[in-house]
């Protein structure tokens, strides 16, 4: 599907206000409600607009510690990636698993209630994950930008 300027305008407005109603979006994107609805339907059926998810604020729920663990795997093990990600999926405190091409192989986004809890997760569940060659941690201090904007 080829996007025209109106599609881009609509996507920009949708990115700025993902929860806006069709009527509200139509006003923001400067089109009629019927046009807006038709274009949204087209974006959905083309598979470009796949859905919308609520992002949970874990800090508000009492999970104060957020850590990025950057993992290098032992690549002499042919199943290193699969074994590692399978095992990581069984740790509930892991929110994201990303794989990379670069110096880092896998990144885990881990949350914990506090530092004592983090230490326990780290010792009992992270260090026991298979095929880890090296591990380094980045502690999240704050989110400066989190809107996942796109240069559309």
């Amino acid at each position, binding site marked *: 599907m080829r996007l025209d300027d109106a599609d881009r305008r609509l996507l920009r407005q949708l990115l700025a206000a993902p929860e806006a109603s069709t009527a509200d979006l139509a006003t923001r994107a400067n089109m009629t409600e019927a046009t807006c609805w038709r274009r949204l339907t087209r974006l959905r059926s083309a598979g470009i607009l796949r859905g919308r998810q609520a992002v949970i604020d874990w800090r508000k729920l009492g999970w104060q510690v957020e850590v990025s663990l950057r993992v290098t795997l032992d690549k002499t093990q042919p199943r290193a990636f699969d074994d590692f990600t399978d095992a990581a999926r069984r740790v509930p405190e892991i929110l994201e698993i990303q794989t*990379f091409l670069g*110096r880092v192989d896998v990144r885990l986004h881990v949350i914990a209630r506090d530092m004592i809890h983090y230490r326990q997760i780290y010792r009992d569940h992270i260090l026991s994950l298979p095929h880890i060659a090296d591990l380094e941690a980045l*502690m999240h201090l704050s*989110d400066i930008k989190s809107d996942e904007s796109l240069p559309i």
Partner: protein
Amino acid sequence: MIELDETDRALLRALAQDATQSAGALGRKLGLSQPAAWRRVNRLRDAGAIARHRLDLDLAALGFGVTVFLGISLASKGRASLADFERAVSAIPEVQTVQHVLGLYDYRLRVVARDLPDFERVLRRRIMTLPGVGAVDANVLLSEERRPGPL
């Protein structure tokens, strides 16, 4: 801190998967009346349990074939330079997220680009020219999986 009961947790789990569901649909799933589901969702939103909503877009179909994570160390670390850096980096349209971190780097950036040559352009023209930027480490994203978390 917000206290959650089992129903709140189930609601958050459902909304984290699909936030377009109506209060009626959520209620039917969880055995609540439509008004009761609506009240609970509002309470969770007002208490801040839901930080925001994110769109699930097919980035490749939109022409963004490459996502790169950058680790950036600042060359100088006065308070003014942090603020200058944060303001400038947040204004770059290709930069999707910026996190201030403690460890090997000072900032972690998620950057989208059309392809690798486009990424090189963003890196050279926009990232390397940021005020105070020092060492930069890049990792190209291959796959990404979001997990439900400990709810």
